[in-house]
């Protein structure tokens, strides 16, 4: 009796179908790359009694409509902004109760008392370009991150991580809850040392 083999199903066109689907998904794909600078807006509430803040604890940054920078009443190039902000935040000129025992700044009495008290005030014109505003924001956040990195390394020398790296691990959804818990404590300590106090004034109108 002649041997008969079962007829094979022709799978040749399967590849074509799969390719069709593949190409469709390739075309519609945008692999998620969104990232940006996170900010929190102040809630609208009537402040009856605005707290009195000493002038030396405020670091004013003004961007005018020609995208020029005025820092503490003096024109400045944006590449010097980060260093100036670091010097201001890390100054630690306070005495007694307001003294800052971890600051490494110059302790200039005319600059900020304590990072906890230091406020950066950012003001821009309605005609300022958005990209310049973002550049300024970026540099100010960089100043905070620089100091927070330093403190994080000082407090947790065995981790081998900086604040920004630790924060990235913390916000990664794949991190286990127990690691998160441990990291959150360390992060909060550093955040308390250098709280991000970035205030934005209402923009001025151009006449």
């Amino acid at each position, binding site marked *: 009796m002649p041997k008969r083999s079962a007829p094979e199903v022709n799978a040749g066109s399967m590849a074509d179908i799969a390719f069709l*689907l593949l190409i469709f*998904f390739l075309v519609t794909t*945008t692999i998620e790359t*969104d990232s940006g*600078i*996170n900010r929190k807006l102040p809630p609208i509430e009537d402040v009856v009694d605005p707290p009195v803040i000493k002038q030396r604890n405020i670091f004013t940054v003004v961007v005018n409509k020609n995208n020029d920078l005025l820092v503490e009443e003096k024109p400045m190039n944006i590449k010097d902004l980060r260093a100036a902000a670091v010097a201001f935040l890390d100054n630690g000129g306070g005495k007694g109760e307001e003294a800052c025992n971890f600051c490494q700044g110059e302790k200039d009495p005319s600059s900020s008392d304590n990072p906890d008290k230091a406020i950066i005030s950012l003001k821009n014109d309605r005609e300022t*370009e*958005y990209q310049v505003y*973002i550049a300024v924001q970026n540099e100010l956040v960089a100043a905070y991150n620089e100091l927070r990195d330093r403190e994080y390394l000082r407090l947790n020398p065995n981790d081998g991580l900086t604040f920004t790296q630790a924060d990235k691990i913390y916000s990664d959804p794949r991190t286990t809850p127990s690691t998160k818990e441990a990291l959150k404590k360390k992060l909060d300590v550093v955040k308390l040392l250098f709280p991000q106090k970035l205030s934005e004034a209402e923009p001025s109108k151009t006449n």
Partner: protein
Amino acid sequence: MSKFKKKKGGDLPAISTASLPDIVFMLLFFFMVATVMRDSTLMVSNTLPAADQVQKLDKKDRVMYIYAGKPSDRYQSKYGTQARIQLNDKFATVQDVGAFVLAERASKRQELQNVLTTALKVDGETNMGLITDIKQELRKVNALKINYTTRLGAYTQNFN
């Protein structure tokens, strides 16, 4: 004779392509998983500014997007070259932002409604006036968490 006699040699056996679909399917599944469908077509030019101190955006279902910038070329005859806001697939005015946020918030699951982030995807050349107005509207509806979406790069790229 023997059972193990070689078959008639000579021509090459055809390479089996039976595993080709498997390989393609593997690729297919990768892209299906990694894919995010673009949910609104951009009607404004959208060159994001560069920044390097960035944080990743929250999960997609916790984010609502507000686009702003100059209308793209094919809309310029109709809408002019002034920067405008785009919400979903339509041009909108500043006054519409509040209603949009409330509608978006209502469409999300209950437990996510308080953790929503507003991502501002704004063209680099827009004036700050428009953005300030948007932020003011967001404050009115208590959508306080915002994210200035940027592309990764040195800030110096923003000055040209």
